[in-house]
């Protein structure tokens, strides 16, 4: 109750202040019709996706059909991307309830099948995009070097079933890995399943619960699972749940982990630029007539089951 009163007081003060401080809206010219490139190459996938879309104008983010999208390998081989109807992006259904919905019409391009896993650690790739409107955009990425997790079995291919190990309940796991040469950091999405079945309703646990671990710089090669995941989500979730996770995972849950070494362009794309009151700024690694990201990841996949071990699924070490 006191908490609600505090929130109410703060909100009232904020409303009072802001109502006295708002400036009336005026109509302005539309924003520039910019080409946006979302291109992140992955070493764990045989087929690579690049998403093209345009800046939002009047509630619509147009697609970019019939563009020429080519990634050139270091050996000069050109990997031509084809437009595809396969949806390379997802939108949570909740966005349909937005006060101001946006009609997003992104266009997906995919590398040709049969090329195998052609994105390799340590290699350099150049992107070229030419649109029917005459936009020309370029980018370059240097894929981080190969690395591995020391104490958890991993698979390096997304399509393969992830290797599994067992973690005792209420036991944090200190993940450590070898250094990836050239990485600017590591990003580790963690998906925890089964919390709603094992925890009281008061924890209001999402299922699955998605947290992200971050390690900055190539030499930062450790994270404690699950307590050091979700640093940037600590304002969102129930604090009782987060405090519980500091002590480990409950019995009966499963954690699916992807640990990816990220290149400069990917890290710049997620960490944001200088402050701008109109919204977050993304540091672009696309030059020419477009903005966006052309980066690369070296992902490792693992699955951790909380409970008792078995011959097929021994304890995770460490």
């Amino acid at each position, binding site marked *: *109750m*006191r*908490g609600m*009163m*505090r929130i109410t*007081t703060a909100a009232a003060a904020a409303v009072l*202040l802001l109502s006295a401080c708002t*400036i*009336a*809206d005026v*109509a302005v010219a539309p*924003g*520039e019709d*910019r080409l*946006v490139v*979302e291109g*992140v190459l992955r070493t764990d996938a045989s087929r690579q*996706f690049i*998403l093209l879309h345009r*800046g*939002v104008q*009047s*509630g619509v983010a147009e697609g970019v059909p019939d563009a020429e999208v080519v990634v050139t390998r270091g050996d000069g081989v050109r990997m031509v991307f084809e437009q595809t109807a396969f949806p*390379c*992006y997802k*939108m949570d259904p909740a*966005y349909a309830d*937005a006060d*101001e919905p*946006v009609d997003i019409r992104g266009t997906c391009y995919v590398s040709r099948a049969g090329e195998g896993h052609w994105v390799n650690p340590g290699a350099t790739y150049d992107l070229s995009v030419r649109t029917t409107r005459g936009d020309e955009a370029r980018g370059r990425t240097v894929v981080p070097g190969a690395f591995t997790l020391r104490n958890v079995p991993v698979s390096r291919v997304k399509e393969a079933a992830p290797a599994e190990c067992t973690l005792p309940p209420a036991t944090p796991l200190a993940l450590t890995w070898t250094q990836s040469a050239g990485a*600017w950091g590591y990003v580790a999405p963690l*998906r925890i399943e089964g919390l709603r079945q094992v925890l009281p309703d008061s924890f209001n646990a999402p299922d699955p619960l998605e947290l992200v*671990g*971050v*390690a900055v710089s190539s*030499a*930062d090669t450790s*994270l404690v699972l699950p307590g*050091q995941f979700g640093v940037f989500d*600590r304002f*969102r979730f129930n*604090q*009782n749940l*987060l*405090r519980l996770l*500091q002590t480990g995972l409950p019995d009966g849950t499963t954690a699916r982990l*992807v640990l*990816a070494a990220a290149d400069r362009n990917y890290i710049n794309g997620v960490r944001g630029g*200088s402050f*701008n*009151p*109109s*919204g977050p*700024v*993304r*540091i*672009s*690694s696309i*030059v020419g007539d477009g903005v966006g990201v052309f980066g690369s990841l070296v*992902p490792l996949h693992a699955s951790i089951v909380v409970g008792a071990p078995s011959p097929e699924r021994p304890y995770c070490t460490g």
Partner: protein
Amino acid sequence: MRILDFALVSRRAAAGLALACAALAGALVPVRAHAQETGTVSGRVLNPAGDPVEGAAVTATAQGAGRPRRATSGPDGAYRLAGLVPGAWTVRATRLGFAPAVAQVAVRPGEQRVDLRLADEALVLDPVEVRSRRDADRERTRFETEAGVTTRVITGGEIKMLPGLGEADVLRAVEVLPGVVSTSDFSSAFNVRGGSSDQNLILLDGFTIFNPFHLGGLFSVFNSDVIARAELLSGGFGAEYGGRVSSVLTVESDAGDGRFGADLGVSVLASRIALRSALPGPVVRGLGGQRGSAYLSARRSYFDALLRPVTDFPYHLTDLQAGATLETGGGGRLQVVGYLGEDVLDLSDFDPPGDDDEGSILRVRWNWGNDVAGLRWTQPLGSRWVSETRVGFSRYAEALTFPDFADTRFASSVSEAALRQDFTRQVSAALTAQAGGEVTRMEYENRADAGGTTFFANGRAALFGAAYGQARWQPSPAWIVEPGVRMDVARSSAGACASGGDEGVVDAEGPADRTCVLLSPRLAVKRFLGRRRDAAVKVAAGRYVQFLHSVRDEALPVSNDRWVLADRNVPPVVSDQVQVGVEKYWGEAWYASTEAYYRTYRGVTDLNAADDPNLASDDLLRGDGHSYGVDLLVRRSAGRLTGWTTISLLRAERTFPDPLAQGIEGVPQTVTFPPVFDRRVDVDVVLQYQLPRALEAGVRWNYGTGTPYTRPVAQVVGFETNVAEGGYRLPRPHAGDPDVPYYVVPGERNRQRYPAYHRLDLTVRRPYVRRWGSITPYVQVLNAYNQRNVLFYFFNYDKAPPTRSGISMFPLLPSIGVEASF
């Protein structure tokens, strides 16, 4: 109510005056009379016991005509009045607590010694409002005795009359001075003549204070009840000053005159108390002194206590300031200064688990503050030397912690321990020499840890030394020449000025431990005009060096400074400056000045948003800049209506490398832009009026052309990489907030301008004077006509049609308060 005029002058100024041998040529001494031999009257002002009296006002008036000549006795009681036309003069010395001493002197060519012995006088005073004309005299004294420095003084009384945020605020008062701009109502940080806010040296009684702001800059840490004056040197300051390149702001405390007094105040922000008293006799005698005084000031916000029965208010601030002064034998003075202050934002006291709440809120504790301690000893050595020794410590620290997450902490700190020695010698009637040195140890640390990851960590300690020499030479009554040179020496654990001071060169591969020496020559020349020597033209030029940078995003209206030292990765700031000015007094009431300036800055820094986390050498971008402009000031200091008008014209520019463009052909490698404080025209009108029925009114009107901002040119859907599953996605929406996330594409940096800014502030005070003291209620109104000055614009290209919205700065903000003095 009587208004007493009395002489108040700081120890430092008194030392300068006593030994400057100011040749006060006035109305009776036209320039051409330089050919006529003049006389000099000098001596000492003594108390009835024969001890020297510092700070006595000495006036010489030629019988029959002419403007009085003035001097102020120094720490050894010495005074000097030169350039007097031979004839009959009346020399008078006054000092509060004494009856005046008067001597009739037949001035003849050459030097005459006249000691003035004051007599005791028991003063029975009605409660008075005291205003010091000495502060106006301080500017006048500097005008008459110094060549290059641009100095502006705001008295404690004037600070009280300037409307502030809830209560008087010295740093907001500084904004009304020429050449000073502020970029936001929400910040009391200020910029001087195109310099950034970290380039201002702020001193509390001569000791550095790093971040003298509460709430990220909303108001300052200084209690206006104990402020005697604030003096801003906005250009042309001499070689004795170092460490910052843009300005020096000295906030001087009012230690009282030894009599017991108390000041109380309550405003919408905080409650405060200040006590003054003489030091107990046994203490004074035990320390070998003759007289001593002390003061203590405390201030605390009260919303947390006031609202506790209803709710927890998570913020409070405290300021504690104290000082003592002891007058020792031989005209010496010992001063002790101390300050402790803290802001606390404490969201850790929340409901425990298990109550009806759905879930507790993230617990946060954030505190920051300053600590300052200093000892200052001024001692005359014979009749021509003065020694001043200063030893002090200053620290600013900030910490943001989360009680439930021990792996997350953000901390920043900077500290300075300094020892300084100055000597002043009166070589002759026309020549004063000053020399000194200081040794400073500075240390800083900035660290951000979260979730087992160190996002940034830097810190080091450095030893800095400086020595300087300067002279003040008056070859004739019409000229003052001030040459000087300062030598800064730096040595740090990572090699400060690894380039050896060469501009723009950073030797990241050089020796880890290296000594850097930088010379900063300075020269100022003043030529008095007219027979009365009440007008002058001056030129000052010099080099200024700064080894400390503040790292902050200046686009944010409110933030705390985080300091870093120059090292192998970050060179010092080197600024070359020149200024030319004309100024004139019309009697005691009117003054006007115009100054033009040009400044270059090498080694300024900016945050590198795209820094390589594997390297420390690219955390900051190194760039250059320059600024130029004109400041105009017209001031009236006498009468029922006083005040001033300033007009400042400025153009500032910065150039930095573009880290994302490096190595890419066909893309500009640097970015040039105006900084956020590039306010091209700034006008201040300050009026203070004595209304009927003892009412006092203060008005401030400020106008400024718009400051720069970066307009976004496009808005794009905020996709993220789906690292777990492949492909891309929109981030999972927050519960109850399904709005599509966006990024904005910024246009050219700072190429747009907000609309012009203007605001009218009013204050009305009504002192009620009684036998026991006075009580003064006051009303302040900020932004009296509720001008919607733009703080930010938001561009919404997703709407149909696209719109621009925004939020403004302060709305109409009335406040009330009350002060009491005993």
